[in-house]
C-alpha cells in the first residue's frame, strides 16, 4: 500500500466505510420493501461472502487510486474530491460487474447442457457493453453520493481534532 501511515489508515477506513455502508444500507432498503427474502433464497452463502469480499477489494483498490495526491486530513479541493470519487466509483462499478460476470458465466456454463454454450456466450458478449455502461453509471452515482457524505464527515473530523489540538 502506498502513502504515509495516516494516509494508509484513511484509505483503509474510507474504502471499508464505503463498502460496508453501501451493502448494509442496500440490505436495509431491500428488507423494508420486502425484496430481501427472495434475493437471499437465490444466493448461496459462500457466493454471498465471496461477492462482499470482491466488492471490498475493488472498493479498496479504486479508493486508493481516487485518493492519490489528495490530503484528506489537511486541505483539499472539495469539488475535485467529488469528481475523483465519481470517476473511481464508476471504475469500481465496472470492476465489480466484471467479478459478477465471471461468477455468473462460470455458474451458467457449468449448468447448461453440453452443446448449447455458444449461443449463451454470444448473448453475454452482446449484453456486456450495455451492462458496463449501466454499472459505470450506478457506480459513479453511488461514488458521488458517498463522496458528499465523506465531505460532511471529514469536516466533522476536522472540528473534533481541531478542538482538542
Amino acid at each position, binding site marked *: 500500500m502506498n502513502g*504515509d*501511515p*495516516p494516509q494508509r*489508515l*484513511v484509505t*483503509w*477506513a*474510507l474504502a*471499508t*466505510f464505503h*463498502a*460496508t*455502508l453501501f*451493502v*448494509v*444500507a442496500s*440490505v*436495509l432498503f431491500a*428488507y*423494508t420493501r*420486502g425484496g*430481501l*427474502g*427472495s434475493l*437471499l*433464497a437465490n*444466493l*448461496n*452463502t*459462500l457466493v*454471498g*461472502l465471496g461477492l*462482499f*469480499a470482491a466488492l*471490498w477489494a475493488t472498493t479498496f483498490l479504486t479508493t486508493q487510486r481516487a485518493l492519490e495526491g489528495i490530503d*484528506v*486530513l489537511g486541505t483539499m479541493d472539495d469539488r475535485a474530491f467529488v469528481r475523483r470519487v465519481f470517476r473511481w466509483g464508476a471504475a469500481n462499478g465496472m470492476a465489480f460487474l466484471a467479478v459478477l460476470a465471471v461468477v455468473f458465466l462460470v455458474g451458467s456454463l457449468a449448468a447448461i447442457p453440453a452443446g448449447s454454450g455458444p449461443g449463451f456466450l454470444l448473448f453475454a458478449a452482446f449484453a456486456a457493453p450495455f451492462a458496463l455502461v449501466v454499472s459505470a453509471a450506478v457506480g459513479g452515482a453511488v461514488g458521488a453520493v458517498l463522496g458528499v*457524505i*465523506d465531505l460532511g*464527515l*471529514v469536516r*466533522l*473530523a*476536522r472540528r*473534533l*481534532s481541531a*478542538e*482538542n*489540538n
Partner: protein
Amino acid sequence: MDVHLLHLAVRWLHVLAMAVALGGAALVFVLAAQLAASYEWVFWLAAGTLAMTGIGNLGAFGAGLPSPQTGWGTTLVVKLSVVVLLVMLSLPRTLAVARLAFAAPSHVADVLRTLYAFTSATFALVVAIAIWLAHG
C-alpha cells in the same frame, strides 16, 4: 461443503469480529488511548467482516426470512439502522485519530475518550439487539 458447518463458521466469525470491535473500543477507552491508531485498523477490518458475515447469517434464512412487519423484523430494522449510524459516526473518529495520532499524539486521549465510550455503548446496544434476535 456441509452447509450447517458453513453457517456455524460464519456465525463464529461474526461473533469474533464483534468481540474484537467492542472489546477493543472498551480497552482503548479504559486503558490505553495510545493504542487508538492501531485499533482503528482493526475496527474497520472487524466492521467489514461483520457486514460480510451478517449478510451470510441473513442468507441462512433464505426465503424463510421473517417479514419486516413482524416483531423480529422490526427489531432487525432497528439493528441495521443502529449499525448504519455506528458506521457513519466511526469514520470521523478514525479520521480524527489519524490526524492527531501522528501529528499530536499527546492530545489523543483528550479527544477520543468520549468517542470510544460512544462506540463501546453503541456496539453493546447492537449486541443486545442481536442476542434478542437470536433467542427472543
